[in-house]
Protein backbone atom coordinates (compact mmCIF):
# COMPACT_ATOMS: atom_id res chain seq x y z
CA UNK A 1 0.00 0.00 0.00
CA UNK A 2 2.71 2.43 0.99
CA UNK A 3 4.54 1.89 -2.29
CA UNK A 4 1.35 2.64 -4.23
CA UNK A 5 0.75 5.82 -2.24
CA UNK A 6 4.34 6.96 -2.74
CA UNK A 7 4.26 6.17 -6.46
CA UNK A 8 0.95 8.00 -6.94
CA UNK A 9 2.19 11.13 -5.18
CA UNK A 10 5.50 11.24 -7.02
CA UNK A 11 3.81 10.63 -10.38
CA UNK A 12 1.49 13.59 -9.81
CA UNK A 13 4.36 15.72 -8.54
CA UNK A 14 6.48 15.00 -11.62
CA UNK A 15 3.59 15.65 -13.99
CA UNK A 16 2.76 18.95 -12.28
CA UNK A 17 6.36 20.10 -12.62
CA UNK A 18 6.05 19.57 -16.38
CA UNK A 19 2.54 20.98 -16.86
CA UNK A 20 2.99 24.12 -14.75
CA UNK A 21 6.56 24.72 -13.53
CA UNK A 22 5.41 28.04 -12.03
CA UNK A 23 3.21 26.32 -9.47
CA UNK A 24 5.68 25.87 -6.65
CA UNK A 25 5.69 25.91 -2.87
CA UNK A 26 8.47 26.75 -0.42
CA UNK A 27 8.66 23.97 2.15
CA UNK A 28 11.39 23.82 4.79
CA UNK A 29 13.54 26.16 2.76
CA UNK A 30 13.23 24.15 -0.48
CA UNK A 31 11.26 25.19 -3.56
CA UNK A 32 9.18 22.22 -4.74
CA UNK A 33 6.36 21.58 -7.20
CA UNK A 34 3.10 22.84 -5.69
CA UNK A 35 1.76 19.56 -4.38
CA UNK A 36 2.13 18.30 -0.82
CA UNK A 37 1.49 15.08 1.01
CA UNK A 38 -0.36 16.24 4.09
CA UNK A 39 0.75 13.43 6.39
CA UNK A 40 4.42 13.92 5.51
CA UNK A 41 4.51 17.62 6.36
CA UNK A 42 4.32 19.66 9.52
CA UNK A 43 0.84 20.43 10.83
CA UNK A 44 -0.33 23.85 9.74
CA UNK A 45 -3.10 26.09 11.03
CA UNK A 46 -4.38 26.78 7.53
CA UNK A 47 -3.60 24.92 4.29
CA UNK A 48 -1.41 26.89 1.88
CA UNK A 49 -3.14 28.60 -1.03
CA UNK A 50 -2.51 27.75 -4.69
CA UNK A 51 -1.08 24.37 -3.77
CA UNK A 52 -2.51 20.85 -4.10
CA UNK A 53 -2.66 19.04 -0.76
CA UNK A 54 -3.09 15.26 -0.83
CA UNK A 55 -4.83 13.40 1.97
CA UNK A 56 -5.43 9.65 2.09
CA UNK A 57 -8.84 8.50 3.25
CA UNK A 58 -10.92 5.32 3.00
CA UNK A 59 -9.27 1.98 2.34
CA UNK A 60 -10.64 -1.28 0.92
CA UNK A 61 -9.10 -4.61 0.01
CA UNK A 62 -10.21 -7.39 -2.34
CA UNK A 63 -8.53 -10.58 -1.18
CA UNK A 64 -10.49 -13.09 -3.33
CA UNK A 65 -8.40 -12.32 -6.39
CA UNK A 66 -5.23 -14.28 -7.24
CA UNK A 67 -3.33 -11.20 -6.13
CA UNK A 68 -4.87 -9.01 -3.42
CA UNK A 69 -6.01 -5.64 -4.73
CA UNK A 70 -6.12 -2.58 -2.51
CA UNK A 71 -8.25 0.50 -3.18
CA UNK A 72 -7.51 3.77 -1.43
CA UNK A 73 -9.38 7.04 -1.63
CA UNK A 74 -7.22 10.08 -2.16
CA UNK A 75 -8.59 13.54 -1.47
CA UNK A 76 -6.77 16.34 -3.24
CA UNK A 77 -7.66 19.72 -1.75
CA UNK A 78 -6.76 23.09 -3.16
CA UNK A 79 -7.75 26.64 -2.50
CA UNK A 80 -6.97 30.08 -3.83
CA UNK A 81 -7.63 33.71 -3.11
CA UNK A 82 -6.72 34.80 -6.62
CA UNK A 83 -3.75 37.01 -7.37
CA UNK A 84 -2.71 40.23 -5.68
CA UNK A 85 -2.45 42.00 -9.04
CA UNK A 86 -6.20 41.49 -9.58
CA UNK A 87 -7.11 42.16 -5.97
CA UNK A 88 -8.39 38.61 -5.67
CA UNK A 89 -11.10 39.19 -8.26
CA UNK A 90 -9.64 36.42 -10.40
CA UNK A 91 -10.02 33.73 -7.73
CA UNK A 92 -12.65 31.92 -9.80
CA UNK A 93 -10.29 31.77 -12.77
CA UNK A 94 -7.42 30.66 -10.52
CA UNK A 95 -9.52 27.80 -9.16
CA UNK A 96 -10.53 26.77 -12.67
CA UNK A 97 -6.86 26.73 -13.66
CA UNK A 98 -6.16 24.41 -10.75
CA UNK A 99 -9.11 22.18 -11.74
CA UNK A 100 -7.63 21.94 -15.23
CA UNK A 101 -4.16 21.17 -13.91
CA UNK A 102 -5.48 18.45 -11.64
CA UNK A 103 -7.34 16.78 -14.50
CA UNK A 104 -4.18 16.99 -16.59
CA UNK A 105 -1.84 15.48 -13.99
CA UNK A 106 -4.26 12.58 -13.43
CA UNK A 107 -3.84 11.52 -17.07
CA UNK A 108 -2.86 8.88 -18.00
CA UNK A 109 -4.60 7.16 -15.07
CA UNK A 110 -1.74 4.85 -14.20
CA UNK A 111 1.92 4.88 -13.21
CA UNK A 112 4.50 2.17 -12.51
CA UNK A 113 4.72 1.12 -8.87
CA UNK A 114 8.10 1.91 -7.36
CA UNK A 115 9.57 1.10 -3.96
CA UNK A 116 11.00 4.40 -2.72
CA UNK A 117 11.97 3.09 0.70
CA UNK A 118 15.19 1.65 -0.73
CA UNK A 119 18.06 3.53 -2.29
CA UNK A 120 18.07 3.68 -5.26
CA UNK A 121 14.30 3.40 -5.75
CA UNK A 122 13.36 -0.06 -7.06
CA UNK A 123 10.73 -0.45 -9.81
CA UNK A 124 8.12 -3.10 -9.00
CA UNK A 125 6.21 -5.42 -11.32
CA UNK A 126 2.74 -3.89 -11.29
CA UNK A 127 1.12 -0.55 -11.92
CA UNK A 128 -0.82 1.83 -9.75
CA UNK A 129 -4.03 2.94 -11.47
CA UNK A 130 -6.98 5.14 -10.64
CA UNK A 131 -10.53 6.17 -11.52
CA UNK A 132 -11.76 9.43 -12.95
CA UNK A 133 -11.73 12.12 -10.24
CA UNK A 134 -14.92 13.54 -8.79
CA UNK A 135 -15.15 17.29 -8.27
CA UNK A 136 -17.70 18.36 -5.64
CA UNK A 137 -18.92 21.93 -5.52
CA UNK A 138 -16.59 24.64 -4.32
CA UNK A 139 -16.49 25.99 -0.79
CA UNK A 140 -16.28 29.73 -0.23
CA UNK A 141 -14.76 31.11 2.96
CA UNK A 142 -14.50 34.88 2.81
CA UNK A 143 -12.01 35.63 0.02
CA UNK A 144 -10.88 32.02 -0.34
CA UNK A 145 -12.46 29.46 -2.67
CA UNK A 146 -11.55 25.82 -2.29
CA UNK A 147 -12.38 22.40 -3.62
CA UNK A 148 -11.57 18.84 -2.59
CA UNK A 149 -11.42 16.40 -5.50
CA UNK A 150 -11.55 12.67 -4.79
CA UNK A 151 -9.99 9.84 -6.73
CA UNK A 152 -9.90 6.10 -6.02
CA UNK A 153 -6.42 4.64 -6.42
CA UNK A 154 -5.91 0.89 -6.94
CA UNK A 155 -2.89 -1.37 -6.75
CA UNK A 156 -2.09 -5.05 -6.52
CA UNK A 157 -0.17 -6.21 -3.49
CA UNK A 158 3.11 -7.72 -4.54
CA UNK A 159 5.17 -10.26 -2.67
CA UNK A 160 6.94 -8.72 0.29
CA UNK A 161 4.53 -5.78 0.56
Amino acid at each position, binding site marked *: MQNAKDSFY*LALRSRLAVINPQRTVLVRGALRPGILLEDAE*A*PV*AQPPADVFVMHWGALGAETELPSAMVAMECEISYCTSGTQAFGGLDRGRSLTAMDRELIAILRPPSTPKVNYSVQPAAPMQTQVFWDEPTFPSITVQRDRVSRSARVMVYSYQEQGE
Partner: protein
Amino acid sequence: MSDTAARSPVSAPQMIADALLRSVAGSSAQLRVTGASSDSSQSELGLIATTFSEVVISPVVMRKLRPAAKPGDASQWEMLVSATSVQAQVNALDLQSAQALFSMTLAVTMAGADYLIESVASNEAFGKVYLYRLTLRETFQQTL
Protein backbone atom coordinates in the same frame (compact mmCIF):
# COMPACT_ATOMS: atom_id res chain seq x y z
CA MET B 1 1.17 49.98 8.71
CA SER B 2 4.49 51.74 8.29
CA ASP B 3 5.31 55.20 9.48
CA THR B 4 6.14 57.42 6.51
CA ALA B 5 7.43 60.37 8.55
CA ALA B 6 10.49 61.99 6.97
CA ARG B 7 12.91 61.27 9.79
CA SER B 8 16.07 59.22 9.97
CA PRO B 9 15.60 55.63 11.08
CA VAL B 10 16.66 55.17 14.67
CA SER B 11 16.58 52.16 16.92
CA ALA B 12 14.76 53.97 19.73
CA PRO B 13 11.36 52.32 19.00
CA GLN B 14 13.00 48.88 19.14
CA MET B 15 14.71 49.70 22.44
CA ILE B 16 11.45 51.03 23.89
CA ALA B 17 9.56 47.93 22.71
CA ASP B 18 12.17 45.65 24.30
CA ALA B 19 12.05 47.65 27.53
CA LEU B 20 8.26 47.50 27.61
CA LEU B 21 8.23 43.75 26.98
CA ARG B 22 10.74 43.22 29.79
CA SER B 23 8.81 45.48 32.13
CA VAL B 24 5.69 43.29 31.78
CA ALA B 25 7.56 40.15 32.75
CA GLY B 26 8.79 39.37 29.26
CA SER B 27 9.94 35.80 29.01
CA SER B 28 11.65 33.71 26.34
CA ALA B 29 10.18 31.37 23.75
CA GLN B 30 11.68 28.69 21.57
CA LEU B 31 11.04 28.37 17.86
CA ARG B 32 11.39 24.81 16.57
CA VAL B 33 12.93 25.50 13.19
CA THR B 34 13.38 22.85 10.52
CA GLY B 35 16.70 22.43 8.83
CA ALA B 36 16.69 23.07 5.09
CA SER B 37 15.54 19.84 3.47
CA SER B 38 17.61 18.18 0.81
CA ASP B 39 14.57 18.35 -1.48
CA SER B 40 14.75 14.67 -2.30
CA SER B 41 11.81 12.43 -3.08
CA GLN B 42 12.43 10.63 0.21
CA SER B 43 12.13 13.79 2.28
CA GLU B 44 8.82 14.62 0.57
CA LEU B 45 7.48 11.15 1.38
CA GLY B 46 8.41 11.39 5.05
CA LEU B 47 11.13 8.75 4.70
CA ILE B 48 13.95 10.98 5.95
CA ALA B 49 13.73 12.42 9.44
CA THR B 50 13.76 16.19 9.38
CA THR B 51 16.39 17.88 11.50
CA PHE B 52 15.26 20.53 13.93
CA SER B 53 16.98 23.27 15.82
CA GLU B 54 15.69 25.27 18.74
CA VAL B 55 15.94 29.03 18.32
CA VAL B 56 15.44 31.13 21.43
CA ILE B 57 13.82 34.55 21.17
CA SER B 58 13.46 36.96 24.05
CA PRO B 59 11.75 39.04 25.40
CA VAL B 60 8.28 37.84 24.43
CA VAL B 61 4.86 38.26 26.03
CA MET B 62 1.83 35.99 25.56
CA ARG B 63 -1.81 36.84 25.96
CA LYS B 64 -4.93 34.82 25.31
CA LEU B 65 -7.11 36.13 22.48
CA ARG B 66 -9.93 33.61 22.39
CA PRO B 67 -10.62 30.89 24.93
CA ALA B 68 -11.74 27.46 23.79
CA ALA B 69 -15.53 27.54 23.38
CA LYS B 70 -16.01 23.81 23.90
CA PRO B 71 -13.80 20.83 24.73
CA GLY B 72 -11.55 19.98 21.81
CA ASP B 73 -11.45 23.55 20.51
CA ALA B 74 -8.07 25.25 20.44
CA SER B 75 -7.53 28.52 22.25
CA GLN B 76 -5.98 31.38 20.32
CA TRP B 77 -3.06 33.34 21.69
CA GLU B 78 -1.07 36.37 20.66
CA MET B 79 2.67 36.49 21.20
CA LEU B 80 4.43 39.85 21.14
CA VAL B 81 8.01 39.33 20.09
CA SER B 82 10.98 41.65 20.21
CA ALA B 83 12.07 42.57 16.68
CA THR B 84 15.71 42.90 17.74
CA SER B 85 15.69 39.31 18.98
CA VAL B 86 14.11 38.07 15.75
CA GLN B 87 16.60 40.03 13.66
CA ALA B 88 19.51 38.55 15.64
CA GLN B 89 18.27 35.03 14.85
CA VAL B 90 17.64 35.90 11.20
CA ASN B 91 21.27 37.03 10.97
CA ALA B 92 22.55 34.00 12.89
CA LEU B 93 20.70 31.58 10.60
CA ASP B 94 21.66 33.58 7.49
CA LEU B 95 18.04 33.95 6.38
CA GLN B 96 16.56 36.52 4.03
CA SER B 97 13.90 37.86 6.35
CA ALA B 98 11.92 37.36 9.52
CA GLN B 99 9.13 35.93 7.37
CA ALA B 100 11.51 33.18 6.24
CA LEU B 101 12.28 32.36 9.88
CA PHE B 102 8.60 32.12 10.78
CA SER B 103 7.80 30.04 7.68
CA MET B 104 10.44 27.50 8.75
CA THR B 105 9.03 27.34 12.27
CA LEU B 106 7.12 24.17 13.02
CA ALA B 107 6.06 25.14 16.51
CA VAL B 108 6.59 27.77 19.17
CA THR B 109 7.32 26.46 22.65
CA MET B 110 6.67 28.55 25.70
CA ALA B 111 6.57 27.30 29.29
CA GLY B 112 6.64 23.73 28.01
CA ALA B 113 3.57 24.15 25.80
CA ASP B 114 3.61 23.96 21.99
CA TYR B 115 1.74 26.36 19.71
CA LEU B 116 1.29 26.60 15.93
CA ILE B 117 1.70 29.92 14.15
CA GLU B 118 -1.52 31.06 12.45
CA SER B 119 -0.43 34.48 11.27
CA VAL B 120 2.37 36.99 11.61
CA ALA B 121 1.99 40.77 11.77
CA SER B 122 4.49 43.48 12.56
CA ASN B 123 4.53 47.01 13.93
CA GLU B 124 6.84 49.56 12.38
CA ALA B 125 8.11 53.01 13.25
CA PHE B 126 10.38 55.10 11.04
CA GLY B 127 10.30 52.25 8.52
CA LYS B 128 11.78 49.71 10.94
CA VAL B 129 9.95 46.83 12.58
CA TYR B 130 10.04 47.09 16.36
CA LEU B 131 7.57 44.33 17.29
CA TYR B 132 6.22 41.13 15.75
CA ARG B 133 2.77 39.87 16.69
CA LEU B 134 2.26 36.15 16.19
CA THR B 135 -1.23 34.67 16.37
CA LEU B 136 -0.82 31.21 17.84
CA ARG B 137 -3.05 28.21 18.30
CA GLU B 138 -2.53 25.48 20.85
CA THR B 139 -1.44 22.21 19.30
CA PHE B 140 -4.01 19.44 19.27
CA GLN B 141 -2.40 17.44 22.08
CA GLN B 142 -2.95 20.33 24.48
CA THR B 143 -6.57 20.90 23.54
CA LEU B 144 -7.71 17.41 24.56
